[in-house]
């Protein structure tokens, strides 16, 4: 492949992860060739393409800075077709495949010629925080002119425009040891931990294991080549049953009690997608111990012109060469302040890249390095700097400046490598709230005290070099092995906060945060303007807030700020590391829970019948309930009117399964009920029912429902549909903590029973032939009674209750018989024109009777007194939950809102639920509102509308007129008692 005309910068014999197969791909509409194993960045650079993006603010042309997930510049849009377009992906981690398509972003009309770059020309007017200082006049221009302009200029790629075509998954996992990062430290740790036989998980964000080993092929470990050692080690781990190896998996966050989120990328690199395979998967791992071996990220040098395409980290250039077999240029200059930078230059030189010059900012360069350079014929200038760079969309040369002599020299190059030291990756460590401390030797923070069972190994612990990594990993896993290592000495370095330059600082563009276009000048401006905390500097300059979250910029920014503030770095502090480690797909975090799996939508046993019948549903709590059953051509109002009328005239059937059910059992069951409900329970006869009202301890209505006493020691309690879980918790809480002296058991039985409500004058006639063991006669089975027996041969708890005012039965049968009994009754009910009705008709029927719905006619501020239900509150009981609160001053004050009925002046007007009520419709806004409409319906049975409302002092206003001002029209209504239909309840007594 040497000198392939398609890939002029490809180096044969190089590229640890590169295969032989050619891959065709497209970037910005141009077709290129790469090789198996390439990332988009390596493949483009193999073709000599360095310009990959535009910066956020000034739209400056940019190429890659790094070779991995720390990359700030080379962000592209990855396009896999409809529903599979992803913006802002790093070219350095995107793996290409045959047919791969990506395009650049944040430019117009093209990447090479971007109109937005005029911002760059006027960049002097857009320093940090400029937007705080202007765009204020005229005031109206902000919403209409300035802000839309700013918004359109901002943003990087475009958000997807179609629903995601992929699926995602999430799982839980457990292990004794989780190792994050599979470089030399992580692998050494795994090789040690594997011997314990415990569960080990080793993860790495890259497609292959090895980390820095892949960039240093000439090193030797225990007498063999590093690459061979890597192969051998990975085989050992692959063969071990207790090890799970995960590539393309990023540890995104370290949460409480060693709970770690791992995001695994599964399909983005696969050419042919298979249906149903998750694109990414979230692994939530609970680990006994965590070994963090995330390595370190090289630091850029901050100098004028350090952002031109072709200027990159020295380690990145070394990685592109050794891992991907790509030379970042035919000629290169190295600008360094650390020994480690030389490794890249020497490796490139050994692969026939001409190193035009090495500029070392330090006064002294170690002798052995000088010898190595001389051997390769490379010139080194020490105590020097780079004062500017040349080139438009690609670097063409640099100007070297020697401050001691004032000498300036122009040197041509196609790439400029920079090395300003190393930043240990403390992200995961810091997420765990473990502490860090400043290390003067390496001018960086390193781990200090752990807050979880975690430790760091290798470069992220500040231990640089291969030997240190291996030893560190081994030790972290409890080993005592001593590795024999042959490596290029990692050496030392000096950190330069300000590099010398003869050009006036205000004319320089020395970038600290590449993506956000934040410069050294911006930091100094922030400090000058009084932003003295590092958090302020970050927020004012936006440094560290780009999509790389400051991986290459934070430490530089902190040191520049500390110098400007004239405080030590420790005093200035470091900004907080915030999860995730790298940007993580929403879909991955949401996992499988979308669409049908978003929430478990609960359905009753009779739901399928209703669906076949064409029911229209509504969500109620976690359930879906049939709202009405339209016949062809019917709208909701017509259907509901028909359902109501049929029920009152003959017979309606309703699915009441969703009502919550709790079985209260035990010798003290009645005493417990006495404490939990406002009503008295001790004297309730066996076989009788009572409407129960439950309060919160604050005295407001909490829930309600009919309760049947099945035996001295057994109550069948029903709750509202949405309230079932909280009522159960409420009861358990009091039973276990306050009333623990009572011998009572609670069981949630909501799911055990299907409930069929039959209402209407023919209800008894319908069930009579199906019932065994229950005397249905009115005298032996009166209203508000419960019996146990059989229906259709199935055991039942049969309640004679009514939420409609008609003769009514609620038939409880074991859930799995619900549909069969329903169908049998429905079939037999045809002789009575049996009509299925939904929640809407149920609401109308109960409102005609003035029965309340907790949560609709009451909210969390309504007392029993307000709801007109003083009758349900025992005066004799010394204690029940909420009793004391009912005596609080405001709860007994006059003028509370009370539940009344409303009759509109125009009987055809159905008021809007939620409409507000006033006494004087002619007052100016703001009006004094005295209440609101809680329930409102057309009553087919009565031939006029009905409504319920909470009105201030409403009980004393009976007969008075009130007004409901709507847009365009004010309605007049009279306050009445909220019992509209059959107020004496005679219809219950039908024989």
């Amino acid at each position, binding site marked *: 492949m040497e000198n392939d005309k398609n890939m002029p910068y490809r180096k044969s014999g190089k590229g640890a992860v590169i295969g032989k197969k050619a891959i065709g791909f497209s970037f910005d509409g141009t077709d290129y060739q790469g090789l198996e194993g390439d990332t988009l960045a390596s493949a483009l650079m193999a073709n000599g393409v360095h310009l990959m993006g535009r910066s956020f603010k000034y739209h400056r042309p940019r190429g890659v800075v790094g070779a991995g997930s720390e990359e700030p510049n080379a962000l592209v849009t990855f396009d896999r077709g409809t529903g599979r377009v992803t913006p802002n992906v790093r070219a350095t981690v995107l793996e290409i495949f045959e047919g791969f398509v990506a395009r650049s972003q944040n430019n117009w009309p093209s990447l090479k010629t971007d109109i937005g770059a005029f911002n760059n020309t006027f960049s002097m007017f857009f320093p940090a925080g400029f937007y705080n200082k202007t765009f204020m006049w005229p005031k109206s221009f902000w919403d209409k002119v300035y802000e839309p302009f700013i918004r359109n200029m901002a943003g990087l790629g475009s958000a997807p425009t179609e629903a995601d075509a992929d699926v995602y998954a999430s799982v839980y996992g457990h292990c004794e040891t989780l190792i994050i990062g599979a470089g030399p430290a992580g692998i050494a740790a795994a090789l040690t931990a594997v011997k314990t036989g415990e569960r080990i998980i080793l993860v790495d964000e890259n497609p292959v294991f090895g980390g820095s080993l892949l960039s240093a092929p000439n090193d030797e470990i225990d007498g063999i080549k590093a690459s061979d050692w890597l192969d051998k080690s990975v085989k050992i781990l692959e063969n071990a049953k207790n090890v799970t190896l995960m590539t393309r998996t990023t540890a995104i966050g370290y949460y409480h009690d060693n*709970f770690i989120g791992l995001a695994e990328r599964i399909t983005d690199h696969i050419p042919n997608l298979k249906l149903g395979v998750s694109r990414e998967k979230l692994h939530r791992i609970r680990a006994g111990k965590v070994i963090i071996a995330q390595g370190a990220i090289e630091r850029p040098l901050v100098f004028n012109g350090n952002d031109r395409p072709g200027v990159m980290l020295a380690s990145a250039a070394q990685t592109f060469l050794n891992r991907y077999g790509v030379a970042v240029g035919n000629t290169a200059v190295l600008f360094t302040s650390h020994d480690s930078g030389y490794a890249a230059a020497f490796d490139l030189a050994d692969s026939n890249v001409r190193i035009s010059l090495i500029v070392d900012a330090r006064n002294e360069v170690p002798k052995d390095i000088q010898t190595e350079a001389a051997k390769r014929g490379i010139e080194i200038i020490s105590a020097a700097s780079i004062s500017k760079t040349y080139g438009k969309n690609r670097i063409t040369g640099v100007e070297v400046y020697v401050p001691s002599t004032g000498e300036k020299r122009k040197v041509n190059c196609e790439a400029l490598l920079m090395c300003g030291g190393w930043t240990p990756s403390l992200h995961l460590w810091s997420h765990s*709230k473990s502490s860090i401390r400043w290390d003067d030797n390496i001018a960086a923070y390193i781990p200090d005290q752990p*807050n979880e069972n975690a430790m760091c190994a290798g470069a992220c612990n500040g231990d640089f070099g291969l030997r240190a990594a291996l030893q560190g990993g081994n030790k972290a896993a409890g080993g005592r092995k001593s590795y024999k290592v042959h490596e290029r000495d990692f050496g030392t370095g000096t950190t330069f906060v300000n590099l010398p330059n003869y050009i006036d600082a205000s004319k320089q563009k020395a970038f600290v945060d590449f993506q956000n276009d934040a410069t050294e000048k911006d930091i100094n401006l922030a400090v000058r303007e009084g932003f003295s905390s590092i958090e302020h500097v970050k927020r004012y300059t936006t440094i560290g807030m780009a999509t790389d979250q400051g991986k290459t910029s934070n430490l530089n920014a902190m040191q520049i700020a500390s110098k400007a503030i004239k405080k030590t770095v420790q005093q200035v502090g470091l900004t907080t590391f915030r999860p995730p480690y790298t940007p993580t797909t929403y879909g991955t975090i949401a996992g499988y829970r979308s669409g049908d799996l978003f929430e478990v939508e609960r359905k009753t046993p009779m739901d399928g019948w209703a669906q076949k019948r064409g029911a229209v549903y509504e969500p109620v709590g976690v359930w879906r309930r049939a709202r009405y059953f339209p016949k062809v051509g019917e709208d909701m109002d017509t259907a509901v009117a028909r359902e109501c009328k049929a029920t009152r005239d003959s017979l309606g059937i309703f699915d009441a399964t969703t009502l919550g059910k709790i079985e209260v059992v035990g010798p003290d069951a009645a005493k417990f009920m006495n404490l939990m409900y406002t009503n008295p329970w001790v004297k309730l006869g066996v076989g009788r029912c009572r409407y129960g009202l439950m309060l919160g301890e604050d005295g407001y209505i909490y829930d309600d429902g009919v309760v049947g006493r099945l035996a001295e020691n057994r109550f069948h309690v029903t709750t509202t549909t949405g309230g079932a879980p909280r009522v159960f918790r409420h009861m358990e809480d009091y039973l276990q903590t306050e009333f*623990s002296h009572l011998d009572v058991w609670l069981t949630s039985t909501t799911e055990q029973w299907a409930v069929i409500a039959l209402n209407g004058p023919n209800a008894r006639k319908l069930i009579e032939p199906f019932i065994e063991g229950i005397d249905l006669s009115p005298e032996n089975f009166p209203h508000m009674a419960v019996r146990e027996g059989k229906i259709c041969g199935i055991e039942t708890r049969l309640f004679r209750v009514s939420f409609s005012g008609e003769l009514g039965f609620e038939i409880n049968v074991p859930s799995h018989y619900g549909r069969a009994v329903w169908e049998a009754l429905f079939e037999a009910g045809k002789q009575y024109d049996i009509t299925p009705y939904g929640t809407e008709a149920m609401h109308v029927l109960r409102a005609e009777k003035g029965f309340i719905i907790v949560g609709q006619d009451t909210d969390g501020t309504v007392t029993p007194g307000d709801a007109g239900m003083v009758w349900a509150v025992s005066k004799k009981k010394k204690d029940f939950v909420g009793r004391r609160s009912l005596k609080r001053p405001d709860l007994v004050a006059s003028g509370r809102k009370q539940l009344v009925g409303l009759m509109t002046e125009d009987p055809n007007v159905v008021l809007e639920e939620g409409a507000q009520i006033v006494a004087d419709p002619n007052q100016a806004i703001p009006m004094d509102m005295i209440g609101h409409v809680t329930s409102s319906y057309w009553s087919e049975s009565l031939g006029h509308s009905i409504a319920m409302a909470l009105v201030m002092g409403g009980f004393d206003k009976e007969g008075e007129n009130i007004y409901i001002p709507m847009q365009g029209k004010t309605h007049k209504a009279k306050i009445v008692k909220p019992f509209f239909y059959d107020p004496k309840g005679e219809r219950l007594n039908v024989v």
Partner: protein
Amino acid sequence: MFEIHCPYCEEKKPEIEFAYAGEAHIVRETKADDLSDQEWAEFLFYRDNKRDDHHERWWHQHGCNMFFNAVRNTQTDKFVTTYKMGLNRPKINPSTNNIKAVQNGK
């Protein structure tokens, strides 16, 4: 997500099995009529809200269904101990880590 030791199950389980149930050791006066409105308000609403070791209740909702007490440091989110309902506030001796809930108290 916390890992919480349920004193009834005698096992550590993930937080999603549990529901937080507010500050612990708030005594509900059964003869509440004797309390002033202010005293009743303090029972209902006033809380220590400690930025330190915090006594609190948890409910093992998706487990054994039991309410229990815990001491958790609200600055570090670390559980110091958990203990059964009805036991007194445990005496916590940080130097020895010797934590014992006292039986039969309230």
